[in-house]
């Protein structure tokens, strides 16, 4: 028996610890604690090694290309699962469903009548200054009026234990394959623990997604042709593209495999041209169609938008969603919920300042040590600055960038993300986490896979969880009680 790992666990008082309330273990984690304390540090390290080997041999890697050779790297995985109670999950789930409904209505509106602008809820400049707003989507009828088929809504917990939405990801959110793999790995390294703890399943995501994709087919036959459009093997998320395609049993294609003829999409096969009904595309909007967007794109299909406009092919997610997950438009999402649904938002936004507004900008600059400033169209944790972690020079340089183009920046107070115990270098230590549940919006409603991807900032003291900047992930459990 070796409870010393837990006895030596040092939590903190500036954040909410997911497992510990002071010195007491929170009830959802008791069973896990009972199970884990039977292992010595060596045994846990062995489990960590096993996880690593399984990731490698199963090919759950992303590839870094150096010269002509591809070198496999594993997305870091922490073996200690993160637990969410069923009532916490109900709250998150209802909140996300409400939010997605509003966002979808917003997208329908902003690409047609624009009532929300006419009623002066959102300023028109906010929309038209957003680089992801696509004029080509204006008045385009999308199947079942759904724009956000697949989304990842990032949730964080503040130091008082309240859940907030940190940001919406409505374009090509990734990470679901790691959610699935993490669960498979946990089954191997902690045998029998999952069944005895009554955790809700995540394994049905591919089937759910397939069902939703099939429902969008313009040709109402029993066996629509659905494809996954990937930028190719040099894309860092390629593993996810090929995994999802495999789990759904759909063809994985690249832009060069498709051709548009008479406003219909076909794929080039050894048996000739085969008609395509639905495209789940992991290629960004601007690369989708060289005839309409970026002319030098090698990743897209010439004429795709014309086929889409004529309703001969369905595209998931719809182009143009970027206007709704823009970090400045994020500020208006609670207003969207009130405007379209006539309801109070269940999940709250993190307070956000528009740096375009002079008085808000002044407030932010005056309190910059307590602020995070981000680019509105940024991702991967790049292009941001954390006020209490940057040098004076870095802050001054960043302020200059902001003043050059204030519309492209927003600021939020530094949220003390919650922390969960991680097994790092033979010890248990708290690291900050967030949560990305994955939601599927289909003609029969919104379904959210219980759990999602918990991302971890593996560097001590860091608040940045993105994989491109030293982040890792955990298996996420939603309890069944």
């Amino acid at each position, binding site marked *: 028996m070796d409870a010393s790992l837990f006895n030596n666990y040092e939590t903190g008082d500036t954040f909410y610890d997911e497992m510990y309330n002071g010195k007491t273990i929170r009830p959802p984690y008791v069973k896990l604690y009972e199970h884990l304390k039977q292992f010595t540090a060596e045994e846990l390290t062995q489990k960590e090694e096993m996880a690593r080997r399984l990731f490698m*041999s*199963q*090919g759950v890697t992303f*590839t870094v290309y150096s010269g*002509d*050779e*591809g070198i496999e790297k594993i997305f870091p995985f922490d073996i200690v699962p993160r637990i969410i109670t069923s009532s916490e999950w109900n709250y998150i789930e209802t909140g996300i469903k409400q939010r997605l409904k509003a966002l979808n209505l917003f997208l329908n509106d902003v690409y047609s009548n624009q009532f929300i602008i006419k009623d002066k809820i959102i300023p028109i400049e906010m929309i038209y200054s957003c680089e992801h707003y696509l004029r080509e989507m204006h008045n385009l009828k999308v199947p079942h009026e759904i724009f956000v088929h697949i989304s990842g809504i990032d949730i964080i917990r503040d130091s008082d234990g309240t859940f907030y939405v940190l940001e919406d990801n409505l374009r090509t959110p990734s990470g679901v394959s790691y959610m699935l793999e993490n669960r498979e790995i946990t089954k191997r390294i902690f045998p029998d623990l999952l069944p005895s703890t009554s955790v809700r399943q995540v394994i049905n995501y591919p089937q759910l997604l397939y069902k939703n994709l099939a429902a969008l087919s313009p040709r109402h036959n029993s066996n629509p042709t659905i494809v996954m459009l990937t930028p*190719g*093997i040099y894309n860092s998320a390629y593993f996810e593209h*090929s995994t999802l*395609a*495999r789990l759904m049993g759909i*063809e*994985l*294609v*690249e832009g*060069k*495999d498709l051709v548009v003829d008479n406003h219909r999409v076909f*794929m*080039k*096969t*050894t*048996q*000739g*041209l085969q008609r395509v009904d639905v495209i789940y595309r992991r290629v960004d909007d601007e690369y989708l169609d060289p005839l309409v967007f970026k002319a030098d794109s090698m990743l897209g299909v010439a004429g795709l938008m014309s086929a889409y406009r004529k309703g001969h092919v369905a595209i998931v997610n719809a182009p143009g969603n970027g206007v709704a997950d823009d970090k400045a438009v994020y500020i208006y999402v609670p207003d969207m919920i009130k405007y379209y649904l006539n309801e109070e938002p269940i999940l709250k936004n993190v307070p956000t300042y528009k740096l375009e507004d002079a008085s808000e900008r002044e407030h932010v600059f005056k309190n910059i040590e307590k602020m995070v400033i981000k680019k509105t169209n940024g991702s991967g944790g790049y292009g941001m600055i954390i006020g209490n972690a940057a040098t004076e020079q870095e802050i001054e340089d960043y302020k200059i960038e902001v003043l050059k183009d204030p519309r492209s920046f927003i600021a939020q107070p530094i949220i003390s993300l919650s922390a969960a115990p991680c097994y790092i270098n033979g010890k248990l230590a708290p690291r900050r986490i967030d949560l990305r549940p994955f939601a599927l919006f289909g003609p029969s409603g919104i379904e959210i896979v219980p759990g999602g991807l918990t991302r971890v900032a593996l560097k001590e003291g860091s608040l940045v969880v993105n994989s491109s900047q030293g982040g890792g992930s955990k298996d996420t459990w939603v309890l069944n009680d």
Partner: protein
Amino acid sequence: MLSRVANSLYWMSRYMERCDGILRLLRVNYEYSQDGFEAFSWRPVLVIFTDMLPQTIEKNKYEGRKVLQFMVTDKLNNNSVFSLVNKARENARSVQDNVTKEVWQCLNEYYHTSRNQNLGIKLQNDDPISVLNDLVQQGMYYYGTCEITMARNEGYYFMNIGKYLERAMQSVDILNVKFSELNYSLEEKSDPTYWKYLLLSISGYEIFLKSYRSALDSRNILHQIVWNEHFPRSIIYSVRRLKQSFETLKTDRTTEAYKALSHMIGKLESHIRYTDLKDIEEKGVKDYLNHIKLELMAIGNALNHYYFQFN
């Protein structure tokens, strides 16, 4: 099946077959080089498998260790074992959902083995045969995994088409180079070990002894490598298997492509089947082998045109 996918599987298979052929040739050539009295020439190997200039070949043909390094580990040599396994693996990766997990893992392991630093060191300083044996074994693992785990779908048959096409070309090339050293004469009496090592390098020595009990002479060698239906590396065997694999691709929709290619393959098979040593004596070994090589290349081009590069 996507044209691009069929293309990738076909080439993955060709690279692996080429790699296997090269390793066996290197292994036996090295053994031969330890056996003879005179300096052993690696010229045939360099001519068949590299695009080295004739003067460079002349300069290096006696440098056994150097040739081994170049043919096994050199990243700049497009046909080194390392390059071929790397290319095969990249092809597999780009169509990973069309090979089984086992096949992918196998290629992955082969790739890691081939880029191990110790390999080059052992090849330079120790017994190279152990190194070559290990690599050949990895290749065997790949063949077995494909046979046992791959579903018998279009992809599998395109892989077979690539494998047998490559094998046939290799056999033609090897015969070509070996006979060129004898000025393509069937009469020239050469050192018997010359032919013995050739047969060993294509795993054909044991079957030769059982089929042609007489002494090793060029006519029997030619017969075995061109016409012996029991020899898995003979040209007729490879072309037959190529034909069988291709026939599985017949469907209602591809009449033009299918007709064109089955005509070419059938014609080649008949040509080989209905010529014999007497015809070759009249026509000449060189022309005969060149004709077969050109036909094989034409089949490769036609496959590309009709199945892989959809226009």
